């Protein structure tokens, strides 16, 4: 297993290289450049744009610029933001905790609740509960998160005033619950779509397992119903659920852009949008590498979980 993990980690390097080449190429082929992005359409700019292009190295051929960038990255220098001058590592790094927190909480909520609802739905197939959950799940999957964010703000922030409207914390607040209260709405809204998807997949997967012969055997042995459901049925139904949950990671990362904007959550999604608008290539490349690494790691974790959950799966 260790060799498998090492092999997978080593395989990520050429994959990241390929991703970086594709991302760098397409970024630079897009119309406009970082210097024109600095020109406010309303008021223009006093910058000497040609001199700035020269200074930023934008006049060099694309392969040379990529090689220069790669050489610095290998040395651990991801460069400086074109717009603020801050190191890219710092620009991204200060936003990682907020994004990881939001994603983790949303993922935990959606996974735990989604599995629970899916199991309940499967156990009570064709009941009012099952149909109700199906309809609600379809609704949550179909309606964009922006709508739920507005509803949440209207009900909980404006009408009931139970929860704060925006931000990650109230400046200067010493209430230990202040930050968790700020987290509830954005994490809740972000988790809805994933929760619905997880519930549906869990239900479907459980139904495949519940009526198999070994389940009949387990019941016939007189095992408690909870044990039969959780240890025998759910464990065997877990493989597709692991796949769905691991695939949620990049979706949550992308979907967080809307939620971060609605609730003013200082995450990487907002930084990505800003960097795209500003053509801040160093920051965009840093974000691309980070996101790609995250997806590759989550796939690796999913593969390892398969082996843990299903003893029949072994990696050479």
């Amino acid at each position: 297993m260790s060799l498998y993990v090492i092999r997978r980690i080593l395989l990520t390097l050429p994959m990241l290289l390929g991703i970086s080449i594709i991302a760098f190429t397409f970024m630079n082929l897009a119309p406009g450049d970082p210097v024109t992005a600095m020109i406010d359409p309303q008021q223009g700019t006093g910058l000497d744009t040609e001199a700035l292009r020269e200074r930023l190295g934008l006049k060099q051929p694309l392969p040379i610029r990529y090689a220069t960038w790669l050489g610095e990255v290998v040395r651990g220098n991801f460069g400086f933001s074109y717009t603020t001058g801050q190191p890219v590592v710092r620009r991204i790094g200060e936003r990682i905790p907020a994004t990881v927190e939001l994603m983790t909480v949303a993922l935990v909520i959606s996974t735990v609740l989604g599995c629970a609802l899916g199991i309940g739905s499967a156990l009570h197939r064709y009941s009012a509960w099952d149909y109700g959950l199906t309809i609600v799940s379809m609704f949550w999957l179909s309606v964009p998160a922006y709508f739920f964010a507005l509803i949440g703000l209207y009900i909980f922030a404006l009408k009931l005033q139970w929860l704060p409207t925006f931000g990650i914390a109230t400046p200067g607040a010493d209430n230990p619950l202040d930050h968790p209260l700020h987290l509830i709405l954005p994490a809740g809204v972000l988790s809805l779509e994933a929760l619905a998807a997880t519930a549906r997949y869990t239900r479907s997967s459980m139904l495949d397992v519940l009526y198999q012969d070994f389940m009949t055997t387990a019941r016939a042995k007189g095992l408690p119903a909870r044990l039969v459901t959780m240890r025998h049925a759910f464990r065997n139904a877990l493989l597709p659920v692991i796949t769905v949950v691991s695939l949620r990671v990049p979706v949550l990362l992308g979907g967080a852009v809307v939620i971060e904007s609605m609730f003013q959550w200082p995450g990487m999604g907002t930084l990505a949008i800003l960097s795209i608008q500003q053509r801040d290539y160093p920051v965009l490349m840093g974000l691309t590498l980070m996101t790609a690494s995250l997806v590759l790691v989550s796939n690796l974790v999913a593969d390892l979980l398969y082996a843990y959950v299903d003893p029949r799966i072994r990696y050479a």
Partner: protein
Amino acid sequence: MDKLTRRNLLELSLVGGGAALLAACTSATPAAPTSAPAAKPTTAPAAAAAPTTSAPPPGAPATAASTTAPPAASATGGSLTPLWGATFAHTNPFTSVSNVQWQYQASVFSSLLTPSADKTKMESELAEVTSAPDGSSYTFKLNPKAKFHDGQPVTADDVAYTYTMALNKDTKSNRLSRLSIIKGGGDYSAGKTDSVAGIVVIDPQTIRFDMEFPTALFLVETDLAILPKHILGGVAPADLEKQPFMFDSPVGSGPFKAVKNLTDQSSELAANADFYRGKPKLDKIVFRIVKQADAAQIALERGEVDFNAAPSGSINLAPDALSRFLAQPNLFMVKMPNPVSQTLGFNLRTDYWQDKRVRQAMAYAIDRRKIIDSLLGGIAEIVNSPMRHPWVAYKPKNDYTYDPGKAKQLLTEAGWDFNRQVTVSSIPSTSETDRATRAAIQAQLESIGVKTTWEELEASVWAKKFYEDHTHEMVYIPATNFIDPALFLDFHYKSDGRNGPGYATADFDALIEKGRRAPSQDARRAVYQSIGDQLNEDQPWIWLWSLADIYVFNRRVGIPFITAPSANPKTAADVPLTGNVQALPTWFFRPEEWTVKA
């Protein structure tokens, strides 16, 4: 649970589907409350004194006299929470481009002079100025009490350092060309000299700026935030932008000290008890960032923020949203003229735009009054010129009142090809109102025989097309009149400027230069009024209207130059226009005099 029959399932599905449809059709804007929102408790404005009438400053456009209760007695202490609708990226004064950054700098730093509240003149901040009678030099005597937040005195060396760095091309300064009016500034920027000959330190409290030529223009440049040489003097100019000073820990000499900047969240400032003009009335200012208009609306209604500071477009400007603000007893609205106007531009490099009758026809073809009243909720004013600066006091000779008959006549006389299709390039629409406005203009141009296709380009692509490649046909874009007419004309209309419209000629260059070199404000005024007449006649770039800047304040806020009305009108159109058009940078003026009630 019992299994459901198919009939039950169909009934449930119908009910559920209907509920979902109703929910989906719910307006995104929260409905008007049926009861008063539970905002922070406020007291009604003090009614002890008789209502006062605020007189407009000289030369200002007539505004409705505001018969209002005076502001509450000056309070001290408390925290002001302005709302920013955009991220605070950095506080580098050489590369700042947004109101967010300028407001921060106005609080943390000092400048030699600052625009007056009515934007008609520059007035003393860090220094008193003495100008040579012909405008060939300016001598500044610094306030001896002025200190940086670390206790070091503000000296002439700091001023010299700041202006020298503003002329250094390695700092990416956006004032390079503007400050080239300082003697030797251009040579220094080009790397031909090691210092700027025209910046002369006379003694620790006195500095003189000599000009390349006599001009009254330099005073406009005295709003630059003064940086501490003892902290930044050892940093290479190219590395200045990367310093933590420019992000987290600026040290200025302003009324407030930087405490903490949280990315995309807030910027906290604390009062500077040693401020040279007296301790600020507030204990602190906490700028909070809320980019989403609906969240900003809720935050204002709940009292989580005190007012929307920058940019004003951070709130929803739809008429019903503004009426909702006015319905809240704890809020009041201020409407100010906006330096940004909506414009329709041309490319005079193209032969069919070169006849001014064609351009005049376009101006006559657009029913601006109707668009403002029916689509913009009446909160815009018609403008006919970029010469909107209060001290220029320019009145356009022709206001191009809607006249489609005259428009068609002019086009016919000019030999316009009525089969021609013209592409109008704009940046993406930001609202339904904006889209409706564009559609209205397109229809009105079509009615006089000008067929247009509208394309939306991403901002940097649009900027390249208009400012660099000049490959546009027509443009529809908001544009600002800049803080001074000279800056506007240099940028947009000179041969060696961006010259987006392609209107520059040697004669017009000479006229613009005459305004730059005029030694007094009166002399400059005459030049700019003449330029205003020429642009009004030739219409190389049609200035359509200016959407007012709308600011929503919590009644607990006391502002030195704004008086809260005792009662709110029903619609934003009925809110009187306050003050003169504020040129950039921000109108956020004298933050040390602001107050909040507990």
